């Protein structure tokens, strides 16, 4: 099994694609940092007992006035920037994974059913999808959160899911329409397979690859969206860590030359999104060889 995997084209292409490797290494580092944040962060920035206003607005350690253990400096509450970033990345990953799992499941199911049964079901769902699509995901999530104020991280996830599932439904529908009439589906039907069995055993595995690409790209978009919403003050509540909120706070200090409040969380955010986008590029080429780099 392992040998087959090692010899497969999939893996050898991956190893040869330098940007995919770089992307996954960046992503892995940030992910590990986020998972083990409570163990490696020098401070728990959301435990008020560990904070001291005397430590506020310290620059990074290599600059004049920098102070251990605040490697990347502190913010106006005396929170260690590095620790806050690690905890903020946890929120980013939590929101990102939850949204693509939930929105993906809903979208794939709806798209599969709509394309398989076509007719009225298809027409209705696709009109709904069109209506959703003519609005932007960002605007819709912003409005939903503006209306249902103060619901915490689960509400942020829910709002993004509501605005975002259409993307998956559309892709899945297109993909299913492409394989629905293939010979193996006809064969399965001729053998007397039930609709459910045909959908799950035969159509789903063949129609799912484009969804993987959409999910990868979408993960980056969702992480950016959460940061944007929190930046605008309608996302994650103020007592929860978020990269977007850190940047929004740091914005007040850029004119005073205190750049570390903004630049470091910004860099963490870019790393996550850049990492996943590099991986997504590779995945897209792998799944659609027509796009191969020339």
């Amino acid at each position, binding site marked *: 099994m392992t040998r087959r995997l090692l010899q497969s084209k999939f893996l050898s292409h991956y190893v040869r694609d330098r940007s995919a490797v770089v992307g996954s290494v960046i992503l892995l580092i940030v992910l590990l940092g986020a998972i083990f944040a409570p163990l490696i962060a020098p401070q728990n920035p959301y435990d008020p007992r560990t904070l001291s206003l005397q430590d506020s607005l310290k620059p990074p350690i290599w600059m004049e006035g920098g102070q251990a253990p605040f490697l990347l400096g502190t913010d106006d509450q005396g929170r260690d920037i590095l620790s806050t970033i690690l905890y903020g990345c946890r929120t980013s990953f939590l929101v990102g994974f939850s949204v693509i799992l939930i929105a993906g499941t809903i979208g794939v199911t709806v798209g599969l059913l709509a394309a398989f049964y076509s007719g009225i079901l298809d027409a209705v769902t696709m009109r709904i999808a069109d209506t959703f699509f003519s*609005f932007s995901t960002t605007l819709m999530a*912003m*409005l939903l959160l*503006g209306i*249902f104020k103060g619901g915490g991280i689960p509400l942020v996830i829910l709002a993004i899911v509501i605005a975002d599932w259409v993307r998956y439904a559309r892709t899945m529908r297109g993909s299913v329409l492409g394989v629905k009439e293939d010979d193996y589906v006809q064969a399965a039907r001729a053998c007397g397979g039930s609709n459910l069995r045909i959908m799950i055993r035969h159509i789903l595995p063949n129609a799912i690859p484009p969804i993987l690409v959409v999910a990868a790209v979408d993960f980056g978009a969702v992480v950016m969206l959460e940061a944007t919403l929190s930046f605008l003050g309608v996302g994650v509540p103020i007592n929860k860590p978020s990269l977007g909120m850190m940047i*929004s706070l740091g914005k007040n200090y850029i004119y005073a030359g205190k750049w570390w409040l903004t630049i470091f969380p910004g860099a963490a955010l*870019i790393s996550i*999104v850049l990492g996943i986008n590099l991986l997504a590029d590779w995945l897209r080429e792998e799944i659609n060889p027509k796009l191969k780099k*020339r």
Partner: protein
Amino acid sequence: MFAYIVRRIAQSFIVLLAVSLICFAIFQFMGDPVLTLAGRYATQEQQEMVRRSLGLDKPFYTQYLAFLGNAAHGDFGLSYVTQVPVLRLIFERLPASIELAVTAMFLSLFLGIALGVVSSLKPHSPGSRVIMTGSLFGISLPTFLVGILLILIFAVLLRVLPPFGRGRVVKVVGNWRTGFLTIDGLRHLILPALTLGMYQLAVLLRLTRGGMLEALQEDYTRTAWAKGLSQRIVMFKHALRNVLIPVVTIAGLQMGELIAFSIVTESIFQWPGSGNLLLTSIYETDHPVIVAYVMITALIVLTINIFIDILYGILNPKISYD
């Protein structure tokens, strides 16, 4: 063609109705503006008075029908907070938003397509690699971060461009004050327009490049080269023309996103536009403003999409709407 356009307009109208109904329903059941407006310490009677004065005591369908009737006459009611007609509030700020969005749109279309074509000519040259790396950052940077980085570089460190506001504006007609006609206004426009256009620019660039690389391998381009046509004609008349269709589609689909991102951009640069108004209204639970903003946005997006469908027909004679 004519029948098609009429059908599209009818469909758009239904979408608008659906949007208004959904907006109205959500506001009906979520968040009570009376609590916000009457203040936390208002007595029961004071709250009731506010409720009655806003017409919020009537049943849902009466309120909705009244709203629709008024909206058809261009009346979206008064803002809860400022007691000014909502439409006037939005229209006062719309010119600033439109100027910003249009500039960003042109910037991203022009630069995106131009750089995409350039980087497809010699895909492996150092210049193309720089462009592609730049575009990767362009799609990986959220709008608000782009804005802050631009402010940090050009306004704080280099001190060459203003960090916020719209600068000097001059009155053109009616309510329309423009920043296009003064040097100061143009200087204030550069950073916000770049911020707003950056993501689109990167997306269109990558799309154009991908399409051009594919189109340049096709038989018809090979034929064009073989006929001895100049590079300019082959690139623009044969290859680019076929690439423009998906590019225009995506640019159209991104219109909604452009409006959403303009809210973020306006908030960062304290741009006195309608996006900033929406954010304030969200914070203040000013429902009539939010509903009117959403309806106007939907109207703009739907109109642009109809125009894009018509543009298809011009770009590709094979498409006919019968």
